[in-house]
């Protein structure tokens, strides 16, 4: 086990890769009461095309299968529900699926060892039948309907579909009605065997626990299951054109005021660390020009084009990077025109170093705040691993971002890269 100590934040991390390839991170924090455990597979909604374990040809699976699998992993061969059993240890259990991972988790203050062993056991016991898959389709279609009623979800996914022709980010994590209906128990096994191999997974424990004891417990549990270390999963993303698909969509929903969102498709770097820096530079750029302290925001507010629902955000993933600005507005066309010009004209601005420093301070403060809770520490900790960096490197990386890196992003922002999504109130 490797011991990492960070003096600035006074945090200890113990790390090992087990014989079967499982990545284990133990982060003891004894001034806390609870322990928060996550068991994560590097498998999310984007991972639709891959070479199944032990095969040599790539396949493409229906959208939404990672999320579907997350629901079904809780079903046990003896007909019990792992969620109930895990909860019966008095811990709070949950699971969620994102674009790039699926996380099984629990937190609690007692019976942590038993719950941890059970977490490993149930996630590593797949059991999918034709009938249970059909029944689950009912539950997931209801969940899909619920999301359909949320304007913010429609806006984000609507913009992503407008920006991306082939990249699977153009489809909701949960999938579509049609794709959910295509999921079968055989397809679930195929995905499970490939992505739930310990070599593609990570166990992270943070909180009040005895790390040496837990390490032995985890090692023993994993050794008993006979997994052999496996090569990294080979996945594929379709080739994505530079151009966007659609520059404007207008829909009607039950909302009180028109909502308008603009999305900008940007070109991400291939190397993951470069892309990480690019993502930070984009966030800093947004902070400077589209946050509450920006001139643009004041202008929009004073001219009556936005209200308190205004927001701007951005994110990047393998093969994609985009930023968004949205608000409720009484003047959708003017909002679209004004914000588009603001975005496109960023390249003409000189990056103000005082403002950049201020945004870096803000980003650093919010990073430090995120270490407060065991949940955000654990999940944040995992987020940096795919980029090949540690959470403790983040403050220095923020500090090292240059005005030049921000400038480079602004050069990509052109009219042809921007799409608009408008949600109008439904006329009764």
């Amino acid at each position, binding site marked *: 086990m490797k011991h990492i100590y960070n003096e600035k934040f006074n945090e200890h991390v113990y790390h090992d890769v087990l014989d079967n390839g499982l990545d284990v991170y133990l982060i003891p924090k004894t001034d806390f009461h609870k322990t928060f455990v996550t068991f994560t597979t590097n498998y999310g909604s984007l991972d639709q095309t891959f070479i199944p374990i032990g095969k040599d040809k790539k396949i493409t699976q229906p959208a939404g299968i990672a999320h579907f699998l997350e629901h079904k992993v809780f079903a046990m061969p003896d007909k019990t529900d792992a969620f109930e059993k895990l*909860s019966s240890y*008095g811990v709070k259990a949950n699971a969620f699926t994102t674009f790039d991972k699926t996380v099984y988790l629990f937190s609690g203050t*007692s019976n942590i060892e038993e719950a941890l062993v059970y977490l490993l056991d149930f996630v590593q016991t797949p059991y999918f039948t034709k009938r249970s898959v059909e029944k689950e389709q009912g539950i997931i279609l*209801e969940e899909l309907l619920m999301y359909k009623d949320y304007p913010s979800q429609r806006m984000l996914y609507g913009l992503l579909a407008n920006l991306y022709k082939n990249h699977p980010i153009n489809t909701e994590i949960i999938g579509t009605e049609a794709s959910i209906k295509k999921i079968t128990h055989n397809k679930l096994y195929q995905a499970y065997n490939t992505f739930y191999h310990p070599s593609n997974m990570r166990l992270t424990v943070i909180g009040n626990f005895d790390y040496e004891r837990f390490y032995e417990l985890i090692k023993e549990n994993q050794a008993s299951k006979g997994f052999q270390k496996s090569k990294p999963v080979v996945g594929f993303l379709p080739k994505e054109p530079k151009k966007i698909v659609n520059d404007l969509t207008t829909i009607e929903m*039950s909302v009180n*005021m028109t909502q308008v969102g603009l999305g900008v498709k940007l070109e991400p770097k291939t190397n993951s660390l470069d892309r990480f820096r690019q993502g930070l530079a984009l966030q800093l750029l947004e902070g400077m020009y589209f946050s509450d*302290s920006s001139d643009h925001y004041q202008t929009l507010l004073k001219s009556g084009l936005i209200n308190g629902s205004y927001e701007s955000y951005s994110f990047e993933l393998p093969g994609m990077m985009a930023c968004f600005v949205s608000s409720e507005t009484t003047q959708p066309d003017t909002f679209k025109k004004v914000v588009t010009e603001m975005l496109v004209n960023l390249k003409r601005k000189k990056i103000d170093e005082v403002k950049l420093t201020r945004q870096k301070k803000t980003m650093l*403060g919010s990073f430090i705040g995120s270490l407060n809770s065991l949940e955000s520490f654990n999940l944040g900790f995992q987020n940096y691993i795919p980029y090949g960096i540690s959470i403790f490197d983040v403050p220095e990386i923020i500090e090292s971002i240059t005005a030049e890196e921000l400038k480079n992003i602004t050069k990509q922002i052109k009219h042809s890269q921007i799409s608009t999504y408008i949600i109008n109130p439904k006329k009764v």
Partner: protein
Amino acid sequence: MIIDKSNKFKTTIISVRFKEKITKENVGLRALLPNLMSASTNVYKTRQALSEALEDLYGASINVRTTKTGLISIMEFSIYFINQSFTEEPVFEEALEILHEVVYGHKNLPKKEFELEKRLLLEKIASFDNDKTSFALSNLFETMFENEQYGIRTSGKIEDVKPITYDILNRYYKEMLKTNDIDVVISGQVDESLLKLVSKYFIPRNNLALNPIDYEDKQIEMIKNKVDYDTISQSKVNIGYRLPIRYKETLLPAATLFNTALGGAVHSRLFVNVREKHSLCYYIGSRFDAFKGFMYIYSGIDKSRVDLALKVIDEQIEDLQNKPLSETELNLSKESIINALIENQDSQSASLANLYLQTLLNNPLTLAEQIDKIRAVTPKEVQAIAKTIKKDTLYILAPEVK
């Protein structure tokens, strides 16, 4: 001063809270006032100037809002910032100065920002209805507490905010500073010297003898039924019950456990039966409000299966009335509540919220006392609670019939 001292968090919270009884007349004023106070001050003339000062303080944030705890309206001004130890700057005192400026830094309220803040609030109130889940819940409360004090929405309604003029609000600001009770609340790594610094800026005041608990009750003659239609795809089914147990009463822990067993946790009857067994919905749960003594069930149900869901819900309640819970099932609920109480200590905001609630109730129970009371509850006591509940209102927000 209310102090939640802890060394494990990397951030500090300082909060000043103005309290008075919530009324139909003050609700709009108290919703709008904090927004205008943080729009412009003597020192920070513009929103931008205030935002920049906060960013310079490593992205400190100011939260202003008015909420209610039972019958008390609480107008809160909080600043949240990273601990001084991470910086080479005196951020603690700078944070105090900014907070003080937002609260007291006005000879008069900023007149030129009034219309803008009023518009922003009115649009925010209108947009609450976009989230159909909370829209349906507000409608349940409005129907259930028609003519009762408890039905007042803290966010204010359009008609509460529209008639407010600058002069009315400016007068109210000055009156509030003079008359409201004031709590000063701090959480984080604070020592004597920092606390002394706080008292230089803010002084608590306690004159009004406010009680958050609402004893107003109602005889139910007929169950109210209301259905509204909206352009949604899933029916929002909400049911309100009177459960006449309130804070500080001996039966409180039993009532809390009844709610947890019914719909407050993942092993609960509603979740297991309505969601898992019958796949009738995506979400379902219940909550118990011990300020007022009522409970409600909230759910999102497939539109064609609402009747079956209602039947299963009724069956679950009848079952809890007719048969005592097994010790095992009751223990699951106990563990889940106790676990949550202990876990709260690991979240700076939850820990502070719990301490603040105990202070408002004027009946501070230690964590150990709260846990002991939960442990002592018997299945018979929970059954007795189940028998006291009375259905009051069924509210459904249904998809429009095409």
